[in-house]
């Protein structure tokens, strides 16, 4: 029952396919994660950024160790050794203060370390909350479409456009300024940014044939969302999350700076920098070192995030003056830049109109 003439050719093809199989027989499938990691390893800038982040995390964790080395707990003031005659902070490497002291004679280095704890904690926690909530909302909005999508999408847009100061103020009034307020405010916005993009991705993934295949197998909505769509979302979500962490850190610093967040005497980079303003004329280190700490941290996360994004999909984002394959890049760019480029209209699912 074979097509004459073609059978011979097909056996040849089968033989070559078999050879391929034999060669690769031992190799298990390399997941996208392994491939991404390999690519990332070759990106020097991203690796450097990763190293910096690891160092910062270590320093934050080991803060108590440094306390025992310097004998300066973060909230203890040393008016004698820590302040000069005029009551101003002392500079770096004086009297056992590695980076000098702050306005009330506390060890600046130690306080920066403890500030790092807060910043990293807030950064990771709020991003985590935002990622989970954002994926859930975006996934449901994109998959179910219709009314649910309209409601969720509008809500997401409203949240994104909402002035954060107003919310922070309001919460601070009611709850009193605190770490809780900060986490609440930042999480409130973090999920929206992620949800917007996840929704866009879900909309396009939903149209793929393998989703239709899953439906034809009898898979229910949640099964499809979790097993079929979600794995395809993890990559962009990871990029977004990595890039959101520095935003969260800056957010926290800003809110603390304004006095809406962490309250003194707890060390937070924002608080430190707020007080540092009073000592501009006399103590440059009080501003420079915490600012540097902030800058380096956010820069490192930003660079790492860019690196991860490039490693995920090596074809994109080589922006050239004359486009090569611009159509493809354009598609990807729209997807990733969706959060920045304004409203993406909800596309209702129109079943294929023609026969084949």
């Amino acid at each position, binding site marked *: *029952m*074979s*097509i004459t*003439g*073609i*059978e011979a*050719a*097909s056996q*040849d*093809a*089968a033989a070559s*396919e078999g050879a*391929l*199989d034999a060669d*690769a*027989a031992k190799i*298990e*499938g*390399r*997941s*996208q994660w392994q491939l991404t990691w390999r690519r990332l390893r070759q990106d020097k800038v991203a690796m450097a950024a990763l190293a910096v982040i690891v160092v910062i995390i270590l320093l934050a964790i080991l803060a108590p160790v440094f306390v025992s080395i310097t004998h300066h707990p973060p909230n203890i003031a040393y008016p004698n050794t820590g302040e000069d005659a005029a009551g101003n902070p002392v500079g770096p490497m004086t009297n056992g203060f590695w980076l000098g002291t702050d306005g009330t004679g506390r060890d600046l280095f130690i306080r920066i370390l403890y500030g790092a704890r807060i910043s990293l904690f807030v950064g990771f926690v709020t991003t985590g909350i935002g990622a989970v909530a954002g994926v859930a909302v975006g996934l449901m909005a994109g998959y179910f479409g219709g009314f649910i999508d309209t409601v969720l999408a509008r809500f997401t847009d409203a949240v994104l456009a909402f002035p954060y100061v107003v919310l922070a103020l309001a919460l601070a009034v009611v709850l009193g300024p605190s770490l809780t307020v900060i986490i609440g405010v930042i999480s409130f916005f973090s999920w929206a940014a992620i949800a917007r993009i996840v929704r866009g991705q879900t909309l396009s993934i939903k149209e*793929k*044939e*393998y989703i*239709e*295949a*899953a*439906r*034809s*197998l*009898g*898979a*229910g909505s949640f*099964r499809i969302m979790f*097993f*079929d769509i979600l*794995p*395809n979302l*993890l990559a962009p979500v990871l990029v977004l999350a990595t890039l959101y962490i520095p935003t969260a850190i800056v957010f926290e610093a800003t809110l603390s700076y304004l006095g809406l967040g962490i309250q003194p005497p707890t060390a937070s980079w924002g608080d430190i920098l707020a007080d540092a303003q009073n000592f501009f004329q006399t103590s440059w280190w009080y501003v420079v070192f915490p600012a540097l700490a902030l800058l380096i941290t956010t820069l490192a996360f930003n660079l790492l995030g860019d690196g991860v994004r490039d490693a995920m999909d090596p074809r994109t984002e080589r922006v050239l003056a004359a486009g090569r394959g611009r159509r493809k890049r354009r598609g990807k760019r729209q997807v990733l830049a969706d959060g920045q480029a304004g409203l993406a209209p909800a596309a209702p699912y*129109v*079943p*294929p*109109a*023609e*026969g*084949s």
Partner: protein
Amino acid sequence: MSEPLASAGTASTPADPAGDDLVRLENLVKYFPVRAGGLVRRTVGQVQAVDDVSLSIPRGQTLGLVGETGSGKSTLARCVAGLIPVTSGRVIFDGRDITNLSRGAMRPIRREVQMIFQDPYSSLNPRRRVGAIIGDPFAIHKTATGGERKRQVQELMERVGLNPEHYNRFPAEFSGGQRQRIGVARALALRPKLIICDEPVSALDVSIQAQVLNLLSDLQRDYGLTYLFIAHDLEVVRHVSDSVAVMYLGRIGESGPRDPVYTSPRHPYTAALLSAAPAADPDTAAARQRIVLTGDVPSPIDPPSGCRFHPRCPKAEAVCGQQEPQLEAKAGDVATHLVACHFPVQAGENLAAAGRSEPT
């Protein structure tokens, strides 16, 4: 009214409800609304994708459904599979009316009706391992778990000609033909009764096509499968089908057992399709004259009146535009060879002379 199509070789008694036919479509209609307007989207027209189609497929046989793009064959397939709701008409599967069932009621049916898709590159989730993809049916219908599931999946892989050791690979690591085999394995997992093949080999190289087609016929023999085989390539359809139906713009133009339809097509459209199919033998090819149809396939939103093919038909006359021809057997034909035409092609008639033609 069109009559059900019975399989070749059986007596022409109408099939009883749960008898010989595994699948029966009765006056199936599927229209898609065309919406326009800004804020409030009104329905301004209908895409008449499937317009009053009646077919049946006997157990263990293959019905080949042929048509060009826009003929409605994929839509029909999805209606049978229950993936899209039907506008009117009935889908009868194994004696049960499964038209527009709820998701819950449809679930057990899904174990018995499976689908193989056209594009091997987009019908498999690129982020999942092959073992998981093939194991999906077991997981969804909770028929096997853990080690037992893996064993069955590997058995399936072997059956379709894949190396079971590649259980943990990703689809990207397979060739097009192999991916299609994965699709076949997935469809086969729960030992369905009916497999709807939506152009399963159209995207493959010719040499690979043969392999996959052979696999499909082997499986049919071993597991007693029934196929609804959709394609646009007539040679492929001829190879696999027991009976054939030709669709044009949502309607069946001609249907019947394979051999009568291929050797003596009655519908001008079928004749034109057959004449355009490449012939392997160069002498035959030289002698044959292609029938060139004028015009493009009209839009299914606004189909022509009467016989939908009449604007392009070399034999069309006034009545063709006024009255829709019924699908019925013509004198001198096997009772199951049906055609919907006012002026069917006669034996020995040269359509190429009647319309515009060009030698191949």
